[in-house]
């Protein structure tokens, strides 16, 4: 996975609240077996309206998206994260994120930055004209106007993003512990772990 340290550039001032993953990428775009190319379907319903922020030429290729509360709610589709990446977005700033989306974003190297609403409002204002800078190492968001907001991030996620670590690889390093758990539960919780019944009648 790509290492993340600084993200700097234009930020799309979207601002909408409760943006669900059906809005980020509608279901008709999910019929793919790869992770690429989903940017063209991103925010399709929003883009259908003239004068939307996504088609504003100033925001082409912007690495940051600013949104309202509860960003990424609804469906678990990771296509939402892939669509953002394909658009070139590698950080989303919002007052809060859905649990599943923030996990999906993290696993694809997208930084989710949660800031209080008034700071998000300020960044929305700045984004109309100027660039925004996110420093993951120091956990700050800054603007050319001396704004400096600090954000919290899970230390493990921060470590993985800064170092470009693959979570599956990290877990596989603990395979002895997993085997030990399986050995222990094979006895105590045999009904959970020893289940071997085939589906009758199924191919």
């Amino acid at each position: 996975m790509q290492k993340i340290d600084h993200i700097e550039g234009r930020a799309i001032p979207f601002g909408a609240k409760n943006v669900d993953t059906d809005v980020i990428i509608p279901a008709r775009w999910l019929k793919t077996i790869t992770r690429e190319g989903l940017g063209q379907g991103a925010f399709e319903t929003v883009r259908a309206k003239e004068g939307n922020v996504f088609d504003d030429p100033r925001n082409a290729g912007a690495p940051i998206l600013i949104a309202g509360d509860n960003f990424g709610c609804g469906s678990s589709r990771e296509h939402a994260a892939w669509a953002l990446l394909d658009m070139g977005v590698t950080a989303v700033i919002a007052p809060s994120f859905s649990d599943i989306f923030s996990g999906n974003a993290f696993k694809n190297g997208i930084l989710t930055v949660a800031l209080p609403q008034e700071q998000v409002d300020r960044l929305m204002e700045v984004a109309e004209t100027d660039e925004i800078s996110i420093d993951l190492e120091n956990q700050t968001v800054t603007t050319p106007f001396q704004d400096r907001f600090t954000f919290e991030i899970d230390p493990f996620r921060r470590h993985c993003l800064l170092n470009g670590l693959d979570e599956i690889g990290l877990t596989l390093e603990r395979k002895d512990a997993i085997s030990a758990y399986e050995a222990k539960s094979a006895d105590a919780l045999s009904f959970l772990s020893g289940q071997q019944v085939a589906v009758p009648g199924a191919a």
Partner: protein
Amino acid sequence: MTENPRTLYEKIWDAHVVERRDDGTSILYIDRHLVHEVTSPQAFEALRLAGRKVRRPDLTLAVPDHNLPTTARRDDAGNRIPIEDPASAQQLAALEKNAPEFGIRYIGDADLQQGIVHVVGPEQGFSIPGATIVCGDSHTACHGGLGALAFGIGTSEVEHVLATQTLQLKRSKTMEVRVDGELAPGVTAKDVILHVIGVTGTAGGTGYVVEYRGKVFEDMSIESRLTVCNMAIEGGARAGLIAPDEKTFAFIKGRPMAPKGEDWDKALAWWKTLPTDEGAKFDKSVVIDAADIEPTVTWGTSPEDTIGITGMVPDPASFADPAKQAAAKASLEYMGLQPGTPMNEIEVENIFIGSCTNSRIEDLRAAAAVLKGRKIAPNIKWAIVVPGSGLVKMHAEEEGLDKIFTDAGLEWREPGCSACLGMNPDKVPAGERCASTSNRNFVGRQGPGARTHLVSPAMAAAAAVTGRLTDVRELGVLAEEPA
């Protein structure tokens, strides 16, 4: 009182921790993994590229559901009728190839056991109390109705579970939603959960696992509990649970993949220790009186936009939060609704009875009880009933429910996710309304421009009969209360 009293969630969590790191992240063991065609192809591809295997194929079950057409899948000679949409066909083909390649049990598109993953899991006894259950689908919360810790995951997590049979997670906060009292006649599990989401909001459960407690949930059938937990995610909670009890055990016993013999006895003894201890604390608690719940519908484009059927479309100005005012205004514009319109005067042209929320036999019985001897209204253009699985379909046909539906003018389809998310050909046309038993009324969810009103199966049937959103209690044909 128990020493260190714990909640149901905490007990299941503790039993599955492989190891806990100092930063609070745990490696959590996963007992059951359901796989479908839409969120798995990239996970299998990544395993192949990395040369990784599926650690526990025996704990994994694959079944296609999301984009299968709900029309016939085999011709009279038993040959596959090709899926017209090449992208859907390609996803099905990928699952048909990946499952055997990685040694995973696979239920085929035309098997009697095929259906929506969240209907198939409980039906086969694959989903059991106390288990950790995941699937690349947010409605995995559904299985919590059995007292399992079940939640949706993204494709990278699907890959993680396939490769390691674990996930790296932090323990969620706990939230109790308590509904005591008696539900009025005509008020179902769907109305309860819609009402609850209306109270808590779609973000109210973010960061929490919810346990639904109180007499209303204790009195519910298992199928009703699955309906409630199914929509936990619409309230922002990744998982929802209801304590397993004698009804749960009776539901599980004897199912094809359920524990048997000595394992059953061991399981039962453990399951009985799972309910939340007296004195256990929840981080957040919401209390609702059952008497406040009436048959509930949605008016907007978020599942929190709920109102009783006797209510009116709200005025956006009536909301205190400016962001909510703006959202309500946009919702009403999309929905083509005026504030102050009585909900029961809103005409609908489409009816969808199905989805992982409401496609089990009890749901079909409730809809059929309303439709028996009646016809759909002349303004209804499209009305379909999509059973949750081939087995549900078979049982419904044994009971003659299919005949009731088709006599009334509804179409009787093959099992799948269908018009809940419009990935297959079943879509609601732009600008038209649908009374839908599904779980999401998002913009464009049932098709671009489609306007969704979420309702219970009985309410969908009532709307089919009158051609408008209707209080099922007015029709004087309440379905038998589930046991």
